[in-house]
């Protein structure tokens, strides 16, 4: 195939490369913010930053889940539809009930877990490629939401005030939604990096056969990755409901593209085995910031999608160059890379 198989994650050289990769996004981000701020200082005002972070929170939660799946050399295209189904479920639950926030978050994530499990089981036990399964469930989950909603829409005035407050309230100036996204990011990041379970996902992505030979429960881990992605998409659905207050069956339509873009821009290789959730979250932040910056710079909003596309190509091109360099470097040192 086209991708150079990266060596199994070794600290040292590879870590340096990956860190450089994330540094690249940070630099791009700093540059973007600097240029925009010079043209309009209000871009770094508290409100504007809060808006960007709120926008990022939902995308970042989705991107973290997607990164977990992509690292195992799979993909989950159904996340937008899962978000919609979860948001509508949560909206319906809250419509005439004043439930506390925590069970609502769990309910949303629960919807996601079920959807993710369906994806995972079909991929693992049905032996159907992830692209096909999640393309199919993209249609199916969305269809179910439309069926259920049947044209109805849930308005902010039908939701309990406590829930809407959760969408806007802040802790020392930082919105709860953002804190929640950071929590998700840190937990997933630490598990992927420092725990056996996490490292096994990378091993599976690098080489499924080798992982199986090494005694990794590839099947269970695959289902697990999809369940995580589903759960986080479900959680994102709750965040969506809290932030926007108005929910219809079309909530989150087309999000899958942004999420995959964020993950790829964030340096997670589409063929698995490399990348971090930190990178994915940074990718989400960069994409959201570009959107706001274009508005502030009064650049035609139509450019946004084209820029995102160009950025994806740039990111995978850069990754490829780095990968070739690393592979060449390792070969030179006569390392074990086959």
């Amino acid at each position, binding site marked *: 195939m086209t991708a150079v198989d990266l060596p199994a994650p070794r600290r040292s050289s590879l870590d340096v490369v990956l860190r450089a990769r994330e540094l690249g996004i940070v630099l791009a981000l700093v540059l973007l913010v600097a240029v925009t701020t010079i043209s309009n200082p209000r871009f770094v005002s508290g409100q504007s930053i809060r*808006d960007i972070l709120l926008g990022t929170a939902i995308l970042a939660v989705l991107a973290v889940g997607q990164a977990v799946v992509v690292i195992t050399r799979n993909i989950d295209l159904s996340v937008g539809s899962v978000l919609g189904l979860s948001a509508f479920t949560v909206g319906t639950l809250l419509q005439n009930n004043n439930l506390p926030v925590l069970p609502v978050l769990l309910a949303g994530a629960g919807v996601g877990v079920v959807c993710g499990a369906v994806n995972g089981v079909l991929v693992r036990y049905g032996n159907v490629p992830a692209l096909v399964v999640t393309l199919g469930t993209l249609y199916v989950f969305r269809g179910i939401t439309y069926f259920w909603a049947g*044209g*109805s829409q849930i*308005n902010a*005035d039908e939701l309990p005030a406590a829930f809407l407050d959760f969408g806007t309230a802040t802790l020392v100036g930082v919105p709860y939604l953002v804190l929640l996204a950071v929590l998700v990011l840190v937990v997933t990041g630490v598990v992927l990096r420092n725990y056996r379970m996490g490292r096994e996902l990378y091993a599976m992505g690098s080489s499924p056969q080798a992982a199986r030979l090494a005694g990794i429960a590839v099947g269970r881990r695959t289902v697990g990755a999809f369940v995580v992605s589903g759960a986080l998409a479900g959680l994102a659905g709750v965040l969506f409901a809290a932030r926007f207050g108005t929910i219809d*069956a079309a909530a989150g339509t087309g999000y899958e593209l942004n999420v995959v873009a964020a993950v790829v821009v964030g340096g997670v290789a589409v063929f698995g085995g490399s990348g971090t959730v930190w990178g994915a979250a940074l990718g989400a932040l960069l994409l959201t910031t570009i959107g706001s910056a274009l508005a502030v710079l009064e650049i035609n909003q139509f450019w946004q999608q084209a820029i995102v596309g160009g950025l994806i190509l740039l990111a995978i091109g850069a990754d490829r160059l780095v990968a070739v360099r690393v592979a060449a470097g390792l070969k030179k040192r006569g390392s074990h890379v086959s």
Partner: protein
Amino acid sequence: MSSRKPQLVAALAVAALALTACGGGTTKSDTAAGNTPETVSAGTKADPNAPLKEGLKIAYLPKQLNNPYTDVEVGGGKVAVEEIKGEYKLVGPNDASASSQVSYINTLIQQQQDVIVVAANDPNAVCPSLNQARKAGIKVVTFDSDAAKTCRDAFINQASTQGIGESLVKMASELAGGAGEIAILSATPNATNQNSWIKVMQTELAKPENSKLKLVKIAYGNDDDQKSFTEAQGLLQSYPNLKVIVSPTTVGIAAASRYVSASSYKGKVAITGLGLPNQMRQYVKDGTVKKFALWNPADIGYLAAYAGAAMSSGQITGAEGEKFKAGKLGEYTIGADGEIVLGPPTEFTAANIDQFDF
């Protein structure tokens, strides 16, 4: 990769260009004159006394399904179709795209409907299909968003620009007690609808009977909830004597009401404009808002059904000046280009707001 390939492509391109450059070709300005749109004539003359036919098949095709506002519109249509003992049908795409609407129009032709009531997603893309429908004897009535004039029989216009501007000033004047400072909280600075209404308002305010009303500021909330909220706040800080904020956009009026209802200005400043009853209900009930307006979406669908039925029964052909009866809404006259204006917008107050659900 061999290096011949780009040259090959270039050569093909040049060849293609050369081929066409010699032949002259058809350009837009060539066809502008010759491309006369086909007109489908009704054929028969209108007979105002023809009875309304029963059992007419009337199909609604909104821009997209699953939109609460649209649901209310077509709900009104359903009531009317039942009143005239017709067969009601609702179809439509989940995405507001013209191409899927075309497929639905084709389906409706196949099903031999008598009337298609459509809100066009693209005024031209639906045209060929609508004309095919009209050739097959189906009457086409547009609402919400008109199709090109050559491919429909009538258009239900929700309200005239003049009517909306007048009623906004009327409400502001009543709420201000005929005198005092008023401000407008609009959508974006270049919003077409809002700007044309504001223009009518300014003409109205220049009239002697409104001479005591003073428009101090037009603010723009960009149809963004947060921005509208802060703009409302800014207006009240800058103009302490403000009596009325008029917001001719549903986002603006809701945001301004939310701010005022939770502030010390409640009861001192009146909010009015165009709003959705469901969004405004709580502010009407807590006294922040005395009255606001909007056309009744249900009436749009209702009127469309009667217009389509009258046409299908031969009472009217869609020509200017023809009159027909539209059930509880009374008699309507067709205007220029087949336009039928619904009438002045409905005013909502604490007394009637619970009768509306949209």
